[in-house]
């Protein structure tokens, strides 16, 4: 294969190799009390292997940011890794009617601090963070309780310098004319310590290629001080640079690259595998009760040393049942009941 063009004398090969194993990546970049943002959306591309490893390493007091999140979010809450969450939606759609099982339980039991935003607001907050802006404006949502009710009170905001002094603000629109749109709502930026995402392809330097929808992964990735990317495939730099218009995150923003095939299981990864309805149904059965939830963790998280071992537990047959049709990106006709 012909090499992609590059400036003479500059080799793209001499940049650090960021590939490391799961345990090292989490050990190095996720610490107790960190502010962590999680990529993916409800039942797709959740960074599950990374989340399992965070739980295995017993990280505590994480402050978690998501927009609409599902399985990784629910597990981190259930396993007691997080004491504060900022979110717009917690659930895995049909697999957790009424809301994410451990998420719901933690809030109803008064076990966790939480603050609600809309999906667009969370996206704009990550975007602001990714561009070094203190806030982003959004056309009015001021008559909602999303605007009026703060999850974190003023006292906590004062005490914790990482939480903005206000949830949001309404200001005069300096460009208003003829009495139209005189007010505008501002939402504060998010700059997490670390963002974790799972994607389809990365090279050893860290250039990221997401296939299918990107959700808010790119903004979340760029807003964070550190970025851990797990992937289905490690691709040669020459190959990923053949079609750079398909790449989303430049390599220098990435701190750790972890190769974990099926790293989003039981959530889906477009082009590689579908979600696993049987595993989601098992979780739905085991998650509501503290005892059986603990059994679930013991079996699928603490009881395995690596993601490979986890996949052995899930079984080759199951993984081949959910393998995606390459043209469609999912498994057509998969029994999803």
């Amino acid at each position: 294969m012909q090499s992609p063009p590059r400036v003479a004398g500059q080799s793209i090969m001499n940049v650090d190799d960021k590939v490391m194993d799961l345990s090292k990546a989490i050990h190095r970049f996720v610490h107790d009390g960190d502010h962590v943002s999680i990529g993916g959306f409800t039942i797709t591309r959740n960074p599950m292997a990374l989340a399992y490893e965070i739980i295995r390493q017993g990280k505590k007091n994480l402050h978690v940011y998501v927009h609409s999140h599902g399985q990784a979010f629910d597990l981190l809450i259930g396993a007691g890794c997080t004491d504060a969450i900022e979110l717009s939606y917690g659930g895995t759609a049909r697999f957790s009617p009424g809301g994410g099982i451990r998420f719901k339980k933690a809030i109803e039991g008064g076990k966790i601090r939480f603050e609600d935003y809309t999906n667009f607001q969370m996206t704009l907050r990550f975007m602001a963070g990714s561009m070094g802006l203190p806030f982003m404006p959004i056309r009015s949502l001021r008559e909602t309780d999303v605007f009026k009710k703060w999850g974190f009170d003023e006292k906590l905001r004062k005490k914790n310098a990482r939480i903005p002094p206000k949830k949001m603000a309404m200001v005069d629109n300096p460009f208003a004319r003829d009495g139209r749109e005189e007010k505008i709502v501002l939402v504060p930026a998010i700059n997490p310590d670390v963002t974790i995402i799972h994607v389809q392809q990365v090279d050893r330097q860290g250039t990221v290629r997401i296939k299918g929808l990107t959700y808010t992964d790119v903004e979340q990735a760029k807003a964070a001080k550190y970025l851990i990317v797990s992937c289905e495939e490690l691709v040669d730099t020459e190959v990923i640079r053949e079609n750079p218009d398909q790449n989303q995150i430049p390599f220098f923003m990435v701190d750790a690259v972890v190769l974990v095939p099926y790293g989003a299981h039981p959530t889906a990864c477009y082009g590689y595998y579908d979600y696993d309805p049987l595993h989601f149904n098992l979780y739905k059965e085991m998650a509501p009760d503290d005892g059986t939830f603990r059994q679930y963790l013991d079996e699928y998280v603490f009881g395995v040393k690596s993601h490979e071992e986890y996949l052995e537990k899930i079984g080759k047959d199951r993984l081949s049942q959910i393998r995606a049709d390459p043209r469609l990106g999912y498994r057509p006709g998969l029994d999803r009941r």
Partner: protein
Amino acid sequence: MPEYSLREMMILAAAREIRDEDIVFCGTGMSMIAAMAAKHINAPHSIIFFETGGIDSQLLELPFSVGDPRVMVGTSINAGLAESFGILQNPFTGPKVVGIFGAAQIDRYGNLNTTCIGDYWRPKARFPGCGGACDAASYAGRTIIFMQQEKRKFVERVDYLSTPGWILGPGGREEAGLPEGGPTMVITDMGVMRFDEESKEMYIHSTYPGIRPQQIQEQMEIEIDVSRAMEEKPPTEEELALLRERIDPQRLII
């Protein structure tokens, strides 16, 4: 008359409301199947898009979530949340959008709660949260809402206002800085409610065959106008066949 379930009736009532020129913003569950039904039955040129960034999804199979890989196939573009909410907030495209979603509680002005029952900080029941519905209902040209017809779900005041409807009635949206638009239809398992042009209050527009308006009123805490109720046209054989054979053969939702 063919036999049908109430879910099928609800889905078709929503589908019939979708026009050929609509851009449809879809929530999870019933909303998706209603949008798919409209595309197969009465609005083949309508465009289905999702907050996750799938624009003009072809939906060969019913997705489970708006993030499902099934929304990524055959799209015009695959993007992300910023793109989709941009389409909604954009003054040229937003008004063409019809939003469809469900809620746990609704008031007479179509304001919705998808967040919690009871106190926000220590709720009796917590739900997923507003997701993208609040944004969509703020900017879309019109919205269709799915509800279960239960007394405790049709209330004078929602416990948490997640998603704006007509706010406090006439002029409410304007005062809140929202563009025109607002809820036009509430579809339940007993009938269809709409909102009065003047007062912006909910009234019973139609009841499903065999249901009386008073029966719907009995399943609401709020008292609404029942005098204008007509009977909703039942599903046709063709509509049901499409729904059962083409759209949801695994009976995941119907």
